[in-house]
């Protein structure tokens, strides 16, 4: 009888242990769910604020909100495109960068490079991949277009830096590149390029190619990128995102538009050119920027910051090649 009672008690003990283990396992998941429920609720209340409060008070209301964006950011940063790991993405970017550096050469300055990295990092922190580490390199080239490579690598030619006249314009240029990183446009382009050439990599990562084929692909990919740039629709998508980034960070949102206008002027003078020379869609891009600015009711509150740009960037640029 005593033995039976002991068995019953042991059984109860085991059940209690499993219940405790279950409770232990559920606890963190519950709190994670609670956090995301708040996020959803907040999102709903924020959208109500933009319509009702705005109409009642007759005031201009911002349509984006920083907190909701920050919540979404974490979800999206965890995603990977087509099975690329972050290291793969970064390696592809580095290999493409090698092609650009081999062709144009690399420019380094102890004050200029950290400054460019800070502007890009501040923009990236406000993007939807806030934990992405952005690195900016400078090309010894008079091209007017910044290249965004996979894995958060950005290459800016000296010519593009010379065109800018303030930090907000530089931020416009870099915001375009950060937006391309965020949307993984170059990676997608490289994938398409690989799929056209090698049927074996269709719907798979081009990282799987044998070394020789991959090397050839990257060489041609870099050439294609510098000659043709992005598709017009892709550039417009990046423009829309970059206006958001500039607004979130507090730069004058018109900086991007001003930069585009200066590039057009330079192209008319036939200096450099690069992929932008092939774009007949300057007007369409400007319209896209204007539409986004109108959607956001963007006021001219942002900073232009010309002094710091002259001090930290323009002062260190070498004289252009004749």
């Amino acid at each position: 009888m005593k033995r039976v009672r002991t068995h019953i008690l042991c059984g109860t003990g085991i059940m209690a242990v499993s219940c405790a283990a279950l409770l232990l396992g559920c606890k963190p998941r519950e709190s994670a769910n609670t956090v995301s429920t708040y996020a959803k609720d907040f999102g709903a209340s924020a959208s109500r604020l933009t319509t009702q409060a705005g109409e009642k008070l007759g005031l201009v209301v911002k349509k984006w909100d920083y907190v909701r964006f920050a919540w979404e950011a974490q979800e999206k940063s965890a995603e990977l495109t087509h099975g690329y790991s972050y290291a793969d993405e970064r390696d592809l970017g580095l290999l493409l960068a090698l092609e650009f550096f081999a062709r144009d050469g690399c420019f380094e300055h102890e004050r200029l490079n950290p400054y460019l990295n800070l502007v890009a990092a501040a923009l990236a922190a406000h993007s939807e991949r806030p934990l992405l580490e952005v690195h900016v390199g400078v090309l010894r080239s008079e091209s007017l277009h910044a290249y965004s490579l996979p894995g958060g690598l950005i290459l800016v030619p000296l010519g593009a830096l010379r065109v800018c006249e303030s930090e907000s314009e530089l931020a416009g240029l870099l915001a375009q590149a950060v937006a391309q990183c965020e949307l993984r446009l170059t990676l997608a382009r490289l994938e398409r390029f690989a799929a056209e050439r090698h049927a074996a990599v269709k719907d798979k990562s081009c990282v799987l190619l044998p070394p020789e084929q991959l090397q050839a692909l990257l060489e041609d990919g870099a050439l294609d990128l510098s000659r043709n740039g992005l598709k017009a629709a892709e550039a417009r998508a990046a423009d829309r995102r970059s206006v958001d980034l500039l607004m979130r960070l507090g730069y004058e949102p018109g900086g991007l538009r001003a930069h585009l206008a200066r590039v057009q002027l330079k192209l008319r003078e036939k200096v450099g050119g690069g992929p932008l020379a092939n774009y007949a869609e300057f007007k369409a891009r400007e319209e896209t920027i204007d539409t986004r600015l109108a959607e956001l009711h963007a006021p001219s509150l942002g900073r232009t910051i010309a002094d710091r740009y002259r001090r930290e960037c323009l002062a260190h640029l070498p004289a252009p090649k004749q």
Partner: protein
Amino acid sequence: MSTCRWVKRLNPLRVPWLALVLLVLAAGWCAAEGAALFLRVRYAPVRSKPSLLDGETKHTVLAGQKMEVLERSKDGAWLKVKWSEEKKTSEGKTGAEKKTETLEGWIHATLLHTQTPKLETTLTDTAVPAQSLLSRLVHLKKSDLKPLQTLQREPHTNDQLDRFLREGKLGAYREDWPALEGGVTK
């Protein structure tokens, strides 16, 4: 000796219950540990009041900061949090003296998570791993990779980024911040 006697006196029928009580206590302790939350974005403002429009930004916290929840706002969207930060006070004889300071403020619940954020691997960590793409391209010499050093350097510290934003009155330091945080402005 006395411990052995205590063990002998212990009623065997009570042992499972004692184990159960201990387990429940352990579970409670673990649950309390789980209540600690971490900042899930690169940096975020901590405000003096649970509102985007009222109050001001008191502190800025960085990604991965562990925080303890003190209370929740009525609508549940804001959390009053406490965390400790090490601050250099002065250069003493034995070098820089550090002081741990406990800070408090309101932060939006969406910015916190129960797990530490997975920082995307830094380039310095993955410079040339054994099976990486770079190492697979066998014809590449070390000198070929030299220009990449410009893209591999640690670009900045969090303090430098903070100073940069403060100087330019950007990000959390912009004067119009409360109005632009999804709020209303003329």
